[in-house]
């Protein structure tokens, strides 16, 4: 009797002490509830249907078109009628240095709803901790005839005589009276690259279920900080000074990312 009992106890002890190896993350496809040692074997479903939303604000409120209700820091009243821009090299990064390119070039035209959201059907599961993108096109991309079959051709072309390539942005409206139009057009000018890169922290991973990322453009901020830029009825496409100011103001605080 005693003999049997000891065998039973020993057997039970033996089983309870066996350390099972496996994936211990309940969100993994191969989660092993019996595992007591995480052996790094976890497989995760890919992250699906990530949405990058491109939003535009003036003074932190959603943009209202075609109405001269805004005032910039140079005390010009202005309306906004056209907002079109290129965001390129939209990339997610992880802490261990892997990069996932979401889109090479994305054209946003606020009058075309389908351009306001970029859907990424599927990316590999990773712990993404930041997003970066380029405002405009860097000089390797900003080449005449490179994007002939994209939806921003021909309207975004930048004349050869002014350096070629493409506009980065066409921000247009009226200022002070409806008879005065402004055209804040940025782009590589006379061979100088005015695009700039921005990086923002975020958290996209298999467990937090964050799938909507918002990249906001604060329109007013193009015109001040660090430097005030006045509206003009003359163009600024060949004007290196204006392009330099817009680049600096753009880098400062035009873009923000929330999720």
């Amino acid at each position, binding site marked *: 009797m005693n003999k049997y009992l000891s065998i039973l106890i020993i057997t039970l002890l033996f089983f309870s002490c066996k350390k099972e190896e496996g994936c211990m993350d309940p969100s993994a496809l191969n989660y092993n509830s019996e595992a007591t040692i995480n052996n790094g074997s976890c497989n995760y479903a890919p992250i699906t249907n990530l949405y990058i939303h491109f939003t535009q604000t003036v003074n932190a409120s959603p943009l209202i078109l*075609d109405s001269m209700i805004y005032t910039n820091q140079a005390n010009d009243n202005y309306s906004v*009628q*056209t907002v079109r821009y290129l965001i390129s090299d939209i990339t997610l990064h992880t802490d261990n240095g892997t990069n996932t390119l979401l889109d090479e070039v994305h054209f946003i035209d606020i009058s075309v709803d389908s351009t306001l959201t970029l859907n990424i059907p599927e990316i590999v599961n990773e712990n993404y901790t930041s997003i970066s993108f380029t405002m405009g096109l860097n000089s390797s991309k900003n080449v*005449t*005839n490179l994007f*002939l*079959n994209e939806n921003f*051709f*021909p*309207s975004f*072309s930048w*004349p*050869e*005589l*002014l350096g070629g390539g493409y506009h980065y942005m066409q921000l*247009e*409206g*009226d200022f002070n009276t*409806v*008879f*005065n*139009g*402004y*055209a804040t057009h940025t782009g590589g000018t006379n061979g100088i690259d005015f695009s700039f890169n921005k990086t923002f922290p975020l958290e996209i991973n298999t467990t937090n279920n964050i799938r909507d990322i918002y990249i906001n453009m604060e329109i007013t901020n193009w015109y001040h900080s660090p430097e005030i830029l006045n509206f003009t*009825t*003359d*163009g*600024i*496409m*060949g004007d290196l000074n204006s392009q330099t100011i817009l680049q600096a103001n753009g880098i400062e605080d035009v873009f923000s990312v929330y999720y």
Partner: protein
Amino acid sequence: MKSSSYTLLGMLLLLALACKKDLAPLSGCTDDIATNYNPNAIIDNGSCNYFSPTPFIIQTPTGFPNMNIPSNNPMTVEGVALGERLFKDPILSADNTQACINCHQQVSSFSDPNQFSTGIDNIQGFRNASALINIGWNNSLNWDGSAATLEKQAFEPVVNPIEMHDTWPNVENKLNANAEYIQLFKEAFNIDYIDSTHVVMAIAQFERTLISVNSKFDKYLRGEELLTPSEFSGYAIFNSEKGDCFHCHGTQMFMDNSFHNNGLDIEPFLDLGLGKVTGNASDNGKFKTPTLRNIEFSAPYMHDGRFSSIEEVIEHYNSGGNYSSTVDPLMKKLGIGLQLTNQEKQDLIAFLKTLSDDNFISK
């Protein structure tokens, strides 16, 4: 007795004939997708011919995107030739007096030198007939963008009461009574009955071949010719924001595939243009940007042909245009305008004339 022997003879003859058919099965092409498929044939004798029109290759010119050719209407040599013939044939009009080419004349870069075209019933339209040049790269057709494709566009003038005023059933009857057309449609599309769908497909194929990329300016870009100082000065004005022509007439297409209100009129608009098509008030007064290629030959200008010369067009922009709620923000100095000097205007016109392609209007 006599009559029964005749009956017997007759029956024997019938039997012989019937037997002949049975004993020697008809040979021919038995493949039902072949052009000479014989449904009575039982033995295939290897004679099948298949529909294989000759592809018509369009080389994409430098600086142009790929032409958007509908997958259900591939370009063929046979289709293009048929389309050209239809384009020039008054058979499409009710009284057989008017062809497409009457209002899209080649010497005028396939447009109408008259401000408004006159239909078969002597009724005038209210817009200037568009030039048909590099039209295969247009994302939509007509000044108001009302037709999405060349095929859809070609349905309209034939039945428009103020244009060719025919009916499609009537056109189909006329074409199907014409042995030559039956043969040509067979070769181009492998159809036995000519219908309106294939008429417009052929016309659209022909229109896609109306390509002009051999102007003096093209030769300049290819390094084959030089611009004069005046032409080059005009080129620079065109591509500066002082002239600011390029935002709408940019690239080697010299159009932006878009719609603008360029400040021609104050409100209310007599012609709503794009707004009539979309129903959006914000599109009122907007019209399709035409290419400036061959602009020297395609007078008069604007959707309603209001300007008879390039000089008048430049003067419009030079004086700044009129305010309306939908005027393009790129008309940046309304009522003031570009303020070009006389020399600058002449230079601009000299440049615009480098976009002329004589071969296109004569060959």
